[in-house]
């Protein structure tokens, strides 16, 4: 009976899940396999699955050709600064929209929401010209600045603030606390999950962002990982074993971090989605 139940209910589920997993992870395995072959092995027809000997040298070559350490540092730096700045700016504004009454509050909020719907390309050319005028092209600053003012972040954090009962504010006010103190000491700590979500979103965005870095920055040393990897394709796509090695170097750390912190990651992404 138990075996029958297993066959009928659990086994099909496992099969499906295995199938899905293979579809999602398979390509990455191929990425890795390619990265440890020699050039001739990668272009052999018919396809050769496994290399005769593992070619770790490919990683050495790519590592020398591209400043991966710098790329990682840049990505990390941009992410960190953006998160810190964004948390402060965005949560402060979200608190104000949620708790404080001031003339025009709702109109301003609606206008902001409207602005959020505008696709990013609208801003690119003018922002680029602005960076040119301010003379900050080809800097990490140029990558950080526009990203700080995240409207969706304000929207999401406002939801979080609004879900905290107003009695807390009122109690604190009666005790004579200023608005900033209420925000900083009382409410902000209560919205930790929201802040974590925000942080994760920023990290994913910086990680993935491609167009802006390649437009506003010029040297490889000022690129984030994504843009740097895109430059890897450049003129010489020939040696895919090297390109794949580069891709593995770029992708592996995030996968490892994700595997360890997956609960937080998933919760963070999900929360951002649900609050929307």
């Amino acid at each position, binding site marked *: 009976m138990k075996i029958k139940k297993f066959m009928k209910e659990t086994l099909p589920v496992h099969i499906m899940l295995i199938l899905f997993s293979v579809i999602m992870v398979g390509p990455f395995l191929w990425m890795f396999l390619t990265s440890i072959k020699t050039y001739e092995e990668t272009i052999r027809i018919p396809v050769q699955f496994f290399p005769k000997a593992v070619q770790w040298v490919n990683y050495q070559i790519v590592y020398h050709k591209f400043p991966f350490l710098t790329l990682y540092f840049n990505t990390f730096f941009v992410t*960190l*600064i953006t998160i810190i700045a964004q948390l402060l700016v965005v949560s402060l504004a979200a608190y104000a929209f949620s708790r404080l009454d001031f003339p025009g509050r709702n109109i301003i909020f609606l206008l902001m929401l409207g602005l959020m719907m505008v696709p990013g390309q609208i801003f690119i050319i003018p922002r680029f010209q602005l960076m040119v005028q301010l003379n900050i092209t080809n800097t990490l600053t140029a990558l950080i600045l526009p990203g700080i003012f995240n409207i969706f972040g304000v929207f999401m954090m406002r939801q979080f603030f609004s879900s905290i009962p107003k009695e807390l504010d009122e109690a604190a006010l009666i005790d004579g606390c200023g608005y900033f103190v209420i925000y900083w000491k009382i409410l902000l700590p209560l919205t930790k999950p929201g802040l974590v979500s925000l942080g994760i979103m920023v990290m994913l965005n910086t990680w993935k962002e491609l167009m802006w870095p390649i437009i506003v920055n*010029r040297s490889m040393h000022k690129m984030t990982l994504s843009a740097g990897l895109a430059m890897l394709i450049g003129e010489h796509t020939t040696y895919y074993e090297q390109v794949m090695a580069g891709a593995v170097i770029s992708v592996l750390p995030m996968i490892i971090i994700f595997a360890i912190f997956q609960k937080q990651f998933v919760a963070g992404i999900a929360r951002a989605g649900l609050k929307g």
Partner: protein
Amino acid sequence: MKKMMLFGAVCTLILLAAGCGKQNKVANISLTMWDEAQSPIIQQSIDKFNEEHKGKIAANIELVPWDTYWTKLDASLETKEAADVMWMNVYLTKYAAAEVVKPLDEYIQKDKLDLSQYIEGRVNAYNLDGKQYALPKGLDTVFVAYNKEIFDRYGIEYPKEGWTWDDMRTMAAEMRDKIKEAGGKEYPIVMELDDQPSWMNFVVQNGGNYISEDGKTTGMGMDQSVEAIQNMVDLMNEELMAPYTVLSETKGTDLFISGQGGIVFIGSWKASVLENSTIGMNGNIGLIQMPSLNGSNSSVLGGLGYCLSATSKHPDEAWELIKYITSEESLYNEAINGIDIPAQIKAQEGYVKNFKNLNAQVILDAAVTGFPYQSNGNFEWTSYVNDAVQKALSQSAPVKESLVEGAAQAQAVLDKIYNQ
């Protein structure tokens, strides 16, 4: 929460401080270029230069992939954050017109630099309105490489000097049949589908043109041009050349060096790739001039030069760099490492010497009957023609139709520019 933020803030400050770096009195200048194959050798010259000017000048290379080189150059010139020295080709007209590159005449006169040490054509290529905007670096030619091992395997005679397009077709047909018989998967002919190493050559050889001498009319709609492109399409249809689907994804050179092609039309900038390939090292690569089409086998001649940015903060030092990297010593080093044919005449002997697996004299000889890459410095019209060629080659539309239409659209733009 608060602790985290404090920690983050401290981290930030430390990183900022580290990022600020030290101030020094050394003039830092940069050279921007594409082509990662050449950068290690050029780096050698840069290292020597830095050694000589230690404490005063420090030069470095900024490598940008070809795809984005011009976009980035434009952006950087706008911001006045450009590299001091840059690789330049036929696009010079645009930059000279916008005055973002500085003419070198003053420096040339002051240092009494002898320009006759370079190939005249290459010096002139960078001379506009009587002003010398760049010093020439190198020379590109186009020729044919063939894989002796494949020819031997299928019992085909090597191409002979003076061969014609028809000779090539006959040879390729024979090869195609023998390959099929043996169940092989190689292609008799492969090529890259960019203008310089392929179709621009054929168009001009056949009597057509990409853009007229006075730069105002495009001849891509002419019968001769159409015929040249049609020849390529015929090659593909008759299975004498790899199909468009393959060639547009994998470069002809890559196919050739992986043993997938009998002959390849190739540019001299890929010479070191040939030299260092497995087939090359086995002594199985032969070089020969392109087959003549309609009596001509003229090669497109290109070449690069070094320009000085008009907004460079260290123009004098940058000039020193330009002078050095185009000197006989520096270009000889490039030649002996096979990365470029020097425009510096004396340095050229290093080129043939360098190649152990190739008969590099063929590459140099192609320059004798060559013609300069056709361009009028403006690029608003080129995509109409280039896209039309791709359409024709991929047979998304008939050759004549695509080219005539593309040429007409391009001409409309040209007319607007030149107000005719």
